[in-house]
């Protein structure tokens, strides 16, 4: 039973990782860049929720406002920081992304100070009881949101015209251009989707533990990036599998007293093992070098 509870908690934590990892992996697959600032978009969404709650009071408004705000933020970042570097060296793009990340954190610090905010209205307390065990409602909500996000995204990517265009751009940008696909527009849409998912992930984190600081997105961002790499960066199902797997491993490791203090180490060890066995990640494709 204890194992089952740990598993459910792991699936839920993994769901949040997966939702964040989807943002990394879609941007990587389609724009061919590592959006190092992705975690900070989560944080920006968190502050937007905090502000909206103060002004309007209802969590639903807060989540909606954060989604809209993050979408705009993601589009603006892509348009003004990354697009001018299209075709530049990957290193220049990565450094720019790190710059955007610290810019967002600094801005948040200037606007809101460094004290941790407690948007307690976002919290979902209470738990579902099974015998003597509890499963928090926030855990169940996270699971439900994860399932919905994955289903909608999978349907969208595989069955909508825009989704197929995204696959085409990720496979071969020039060939996509020759089909008449406006690849810049597709990249913008990708950033918009990734950022909306970041806002949702931010809410899922804050509804569990309403503690908001400028580094809200930092650790989950790194974990989710790890998950994306484990699953195979660039692969949408890979991000889902990698996220869930990482969450489950994390939760199970926590539940074993001897391993609990080393949980982060366990997770990164898994990353290294996966990369040794399959360098492209679980569901990743081997990169074909351009001829």
């Amino acid at each position, binding site marked *: 039973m204890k194992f089952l509870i740990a598993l459910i908690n792991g699936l839920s934590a993994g769901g949040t990782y997966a939702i964040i990892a989807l943002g990394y992996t879609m941007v990587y697959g389609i724009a061919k860049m590592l959006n190092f600032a992705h975690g900070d978009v989560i944080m920006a969404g968190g502050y937007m929720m905090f502000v909206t709650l103060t002004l309007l009071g209802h969590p639903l408004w807060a989540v909606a406002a954060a989604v809209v705000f993050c979408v705009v933020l993601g589009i603006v970042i892509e348009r003004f920081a990354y697009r001018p570097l299209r075709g530049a060296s990957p290193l220049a793009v990565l450094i720019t992304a790190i710059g955007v990340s610290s810019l967002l954190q600094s801005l948040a610090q200037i606007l809101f100070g460094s004290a941790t905010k407690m948007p307690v209205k976002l919290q979902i307390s209470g738990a579902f009881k099974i015998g003597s065990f509890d499963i928090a409602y926030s855990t169940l909500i996270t699971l439900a949101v994860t399932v919905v996000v994955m289903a909608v995204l999978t349907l969208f990517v595989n069955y909508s*015209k825009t989704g197929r265009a995204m*696959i085409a751009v990720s*496979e071969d940008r*020039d060939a*996509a251009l*020759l*089909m008449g696909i*406006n690849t810049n527009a597709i990249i913008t849409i990708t950033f918009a989707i990734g950022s909306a998912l970041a806002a949702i992930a931010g809410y899922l984190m804050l509804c569990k533990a309403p503690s908001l600081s400028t580094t809200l997105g930092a650790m989950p961002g790194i974990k989710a990036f790890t998950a994306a790499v484990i699953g195979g960066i660039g692969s949408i199902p890979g991000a889902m599998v990698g996220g869930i797997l990482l969450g489950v491993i994390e939760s199970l490791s926590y539940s074993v007293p001897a391993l609990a203090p080393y949980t982060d180490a366990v997770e990164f060890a898994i990353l290294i093992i996966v990369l040794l066995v399959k360098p492209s990640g679980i569901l990743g494709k081997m990169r074909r070098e351009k001829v």
Partner: protein
Amino acid sequence: MSETLLKVENLEVYYGVIRALKGISFEVKKGEIVSLIGANGAGKTTTLHTITGLIRPKNGSVFYKGKDITKTPAHKIVSEGLVHVPEGRRIFQSLSVYDNLLMGAYTRKDKSGIEETMQEVFRDFPRLEERKKQLAGTLSGGEQQMLAMGRALLADPELIVLDEPSMGLSPLLVSEIFEIVKSFKEAGKTVLLVEQNAKKAMSISDRVYVLETGSITMSGDASELINDPSIKKAYLGEA
């Protein structure tokens, strides 16, 4: 005399400091098959990339149906009626054959027209219809080339530019590919063909341009150039 569909004027393209095209000019008239032949690295692919906007020339212009398209973004070219089948086929491996074909019609809005073209393509390439649910990456080389050509037809183009469609195929398939190119003309399309296989290309072409290290060194009717001694020596493997 028939209408000039494509006109390239003084095209000059650089890769960094390398001058890949040194000011070339040529034209393609409606209904023609025109071949651009030349050795490896002559600048054939560069020429096609510049025509369809994937690279920008330093100087010179490209006119399609009299309209200057030199600065038109690559993704807006296909809806003008000019489609480019790139070197190495470049099909979308992880999409099905059917979805690849649909990609070709990406800019078209007329659903019934798309469906009509799809049926035509399936009639011309029955193997694509048999394999329409299969992932394109699992097709053989010849099938992939047919898919690339079928995908181009889905755009309902007037001018098709083809970059080495016979590359890497067995002799039997090469002949089949050239038959298909000929059939494009019979279907009223215009073709600009880039080929290493000069002999076959010239045998189906109306006119030929010879590209050598970024310059056009010879041009004329295919039926005349095919008997030219220097062409025979350099491109047809005959003494």
